[in-house]
């Protein structure tokens, strides 16, 4: 979807049409740009940029906090439409979908023509602009979808992948970010063709496993299997403070809050987590993450104890913290077993599920679990 959040904002308020619109919150705050309109991009704005920098470049822009729930509703509606046409739809993010066209030519005809019909239908039904890339694998399809935005359709015929990629700047390849870009540029790689022509061993020595992947991507190879399961791979909750915090107690309280929210999401999805990580960012932007793997759990108390332990081990500098986050991964399904004699753990699990139901109905704040609670039930 093209500038998805902005497009939804324009549905809510058509007066935003044609103006530089930035979704991401207070322009004087510490957040980042979640999305910006093409009019705003002309000022050099892009998503993930600190919103203060954005404001400096484009003070006349319209800065909005955004309507997260509304974006979710539109995203689900678009997905429902796509699922009517395609047997396999993989949702990559709130506004990106991979569609498997294999075998669909017989029903829908030429892919590029069908893409045009689909793009029009998404516009007619939802008033949302979109761009479509058609290719033999996911990487190229994604790059192609970005090739002519907004409202572009780019078809890369099978066999034409390398030629399509060769002249593109290297940062068009997903995965080349802040760290790898300067490294590759300093070694003379400027377009994708340079990577394709390089030796895979050289790239592997330079970047490890990612180097090999990069070489394959640059040569037009990639994954064409769509993963349709709606399963989350991980759950993250993080917060950037208005003012840096140094008080250990205060940070632990915030961490506890984040753990509670993350665990609530976990239970909503009927998941348990095995790997718990925390992320700390100091005032000077030094960022570190620490992780620990444990027995699968969805219990706030267990997760918090691990998180607290990780925090204590990581918070070694006498410098303020600007961001703290919790990340739960290695998720698997929670199954309630038929147990004749319930132990404390089982009772506690049931209690937490009851908490989840109350929160679903009355909101997160309807019921709180105390930080100092001992779990003795």
């Amino acid at each position: 979807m093209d500038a998805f959040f902005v497009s939804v904002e324009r549905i809510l308020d058509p007066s935003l049409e044609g103006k530089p619109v930035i979704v991401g919150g207070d322009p004087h705050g510490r957040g980042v740009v979640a999305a910006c309109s093409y009019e705003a991009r002309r000022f050099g704005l892009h998503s993930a940029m600190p919103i203060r920098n954005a404001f400096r470049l484009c003070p006349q822009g319209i800065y909005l906090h955004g309507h997260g729930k509304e974006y979710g509703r539109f995203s689900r509606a678009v997905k429902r439409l796509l699922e009517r046409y395609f047997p396999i739809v993989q949702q990559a993010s709130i506004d990106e979908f991979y569609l498997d066209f294999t075998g669909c030519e017989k029903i829908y005809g030429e892919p590029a023509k069908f893409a045009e019909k689909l793009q029009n239908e998404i516009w007619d039904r939802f008033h949302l602009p979109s761009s479509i890339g058609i290719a033999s694998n996911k990487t190229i399809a994604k790059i192609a979808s970005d090739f002519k935005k907004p409202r572009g359709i780019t078809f890369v015929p099978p066999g034409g992948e390398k030629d399509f990629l060769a002249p593109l700047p290297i940062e068009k390849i997903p995965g080349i970010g802040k760290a790898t870009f300067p490294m590759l540029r300093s070694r003379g790689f400027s377009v994708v063709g340079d990577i394709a022509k390089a030796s895979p061993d050289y790239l592997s020595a330079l970047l490890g496993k990612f180097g090999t992947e990069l070489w394959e991507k640059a040569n037009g190879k990639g994954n064409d299997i769509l993963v349709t399961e709606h399963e989350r791979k991980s759950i993250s909750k993080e917060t950037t403070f208005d003012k840096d915090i140094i008080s250990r107690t205060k940070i632990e309280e915030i961490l506890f809050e984040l753990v509670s929210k993350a665990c609530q999401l976990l239970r909503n999805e009927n998941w348990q987590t095995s790997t718990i990580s925390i992320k700390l960012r100091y005032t000077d932007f030094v960022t570190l993450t620490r992780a620990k793997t444990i027995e699968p759990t969805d219990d706030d108390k267990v997760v918090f104890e691990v998180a607290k332990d990780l925090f204590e081990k990581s918070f070694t500098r006498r410098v303020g913290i600007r961001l703290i986050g919790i990340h739960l991964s290695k998720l698997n399904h929670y199954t309630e077993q038929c147990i004749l004699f319930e132990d404390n753990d089982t009772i506690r699990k049931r209690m937490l599920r009851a908490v989840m139901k109350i929160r679903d109905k009355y909101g997160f704040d309807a019921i709180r679990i105390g930080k100092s609670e001992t779990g003795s039930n």
Partner: protein
Amino acid sequence: MEKLFIGTAGWSYKDWIPSFYPQTQSSGFDWLEYYSQYFNVVEVNSSYYTYINQKIVDGWIKKVEDRNDFLFTIKLHQDFTHKKKFSGEQIQSVKLNLNKLNTESRLGGLLIQFPYSFVLNKENANHVKELIDIFAGYEKFIEVRHKSWFIQRFFDFLENNNSSLCTIDQPVIGEAVEFKPVKAGDNLYIRFHGRNTKAWKGSLRKFGKDQSYEEQSERYNYLYSPGELLEIEQKIKEVLDTVKKVFVILNNHPQGNAVANALELIHLLKERIKVNVPETTLKAYPRLSKISLN
């Protein structure tokens, strides 16, 4: 034959000026006549408070004579549903109006609405049955707001008694039901009360006490967002093919929100046709420009 009937609960609201009715009205300007240019159904709510004189009903019929498919649905008087105290004379009074509308092919049906506190128990079930029997010859829509009624046995009972279940959308608090249209009976009748949770909770506390119009209306003060309407569209479409007629009634009337949302639902449920949006509404709700004919 028209299948979709989309409109509002009532048409006579002063606070619909200027978001629907124009600020300046000529001497011959009639609200119902104007309303019927944009919608094909209206739910009559005044019948809940008073026994309406037949002449008034004749007047309504005359005002919509240019609209072939326009229907009225009538909300049953509170004496029957809330006070549970009614006489043969009152039954006759209601039936006279229903008959009049029926003869003129203007009757959509009779809405029998019970309060949130009305739970499924033997006494209440008998009460529902009694009313269904009294109005046996008419199409009926039964609105129950408490979760306890949402069982298959009740649905089957309605289906066998010339009645349909009225599905509602309301703030989901306590044992209130979530929005999910269910086929129970030949038709689908859906009422949207808005999702103003805060005011709704407040009004439950004040239930039965004297309140001003503004206080009473506040709980319906809600404008559904475009995304919420997409979800609503999806849920209605899941059952659309299983029923004969669908009545969609917006009761979030304060300021004309019901008008804006009803027009948006016409657009969504009628496969994105462009809608005749009055200038007044377009001005008050600019987001409707995307669906407007003009």
